[in-house]
């Protein structure tokens, strides 16, 4: 009985290991673009996989359902991280105003880019998180409206509308930063 259980364990863990290999790259790419920090992206993707192992009740095999689930959970973790970061920055800034010997908080390894890539990333980050999410999924991850709809919970029709206006806003931001 124990040997049988051990075998099942080994099979499940091997399947999970294969899933990590399958999705770690795309998730790291996606999350890094949202949080703009390599260290934070690594932590977030790690958490998303642990949540998958704890919460997924179906088969641990690459599928569009698992892929959408992982994107969704990683996105939510990224949003939580950004909220915490905003609060942390506010606190540090307040502290900076009060003390002279203030040292900036270490946010880990930054997401370094050259100037034009930095302009593009900065313009993207001026948009709402929902707009950023749709643009990243469409342009960088090359997802279809249907896949984006499964990840975000928006209807397929809404994805097209929101994406249209998000890209229009992005073009305006890029113009302002004279990247165009």
């Amino acid at each position, binding site marked *: 009985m124990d040997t049988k*259980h051990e075998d099942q*364990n080994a099979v*499940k*863990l091997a399947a*999970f*290991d294969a899933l*990590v290999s399958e999705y*770690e*790259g795309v998730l*790291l*790419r996606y999350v*890094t*673009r949202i949080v703009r920090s*390599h260290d934070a*992206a*690594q*932590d977030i*993707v*790690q958490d998303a*996989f*642990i949540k998958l*192992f*704890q919460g997924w009740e179906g088969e641990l095999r690459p599928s569009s359902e698992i892929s959408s689930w992982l994107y969704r959970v990683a996105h939510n973790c990224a949003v939580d991280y950004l909220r915490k970061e905003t609060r942390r920055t506010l606190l540090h800034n307040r502290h900076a105003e009060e003390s002279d010997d203030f040292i900036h908080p270490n946010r880990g390894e930054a997401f370094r*880019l*050259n100037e*034009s*890539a930095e*302009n*593009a*990333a900065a313009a*993207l980050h001026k948009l709402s998180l929902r707009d950023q999410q749709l*643009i990243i999924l*469409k*342009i*960088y991850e*090359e997802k*279809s*409206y249907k896949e984006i709809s499964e990840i975000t919970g928006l209807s397929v*029709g809404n*994805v*097209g*509308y929101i*994406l*249209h206006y998000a*890209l*229009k806003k*992005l*073009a*305006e931001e*890029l*113009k302002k930063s004279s*990247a*165009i």
Partner: protein
Amino acid sequence: MKKCRKRKILKQACRTALPLIADYACSPGRLSPAQRRLVKRHLETCRNCSKTAEEIQYAVRILRSAAAMTSIPTRLTADRRQHILKLCEILHSPDSQRRMKTCRKKA
């Protein structure tokens, strides 16, 4: 009266084409031939949508060229990967599962 009607028709045409314009600019291959024809025809007749489509195409081009200049690790660090697998092993152990079942029953 005629003018109003004309405007309404134009607005409706924009509304139909609008959600397809982003796909037309980013990945036209995703659209069906009929959808591609619809957007193309609309852009030929609507100056506003045509201008927006051009702006969107610029934005897409800039983001894509920025992506080509950006390197993002494609793997989790070895220690993080080990941590995930170790934790999952613990979570999946019979002891831990028994404990979780008891907790669920209590809840």
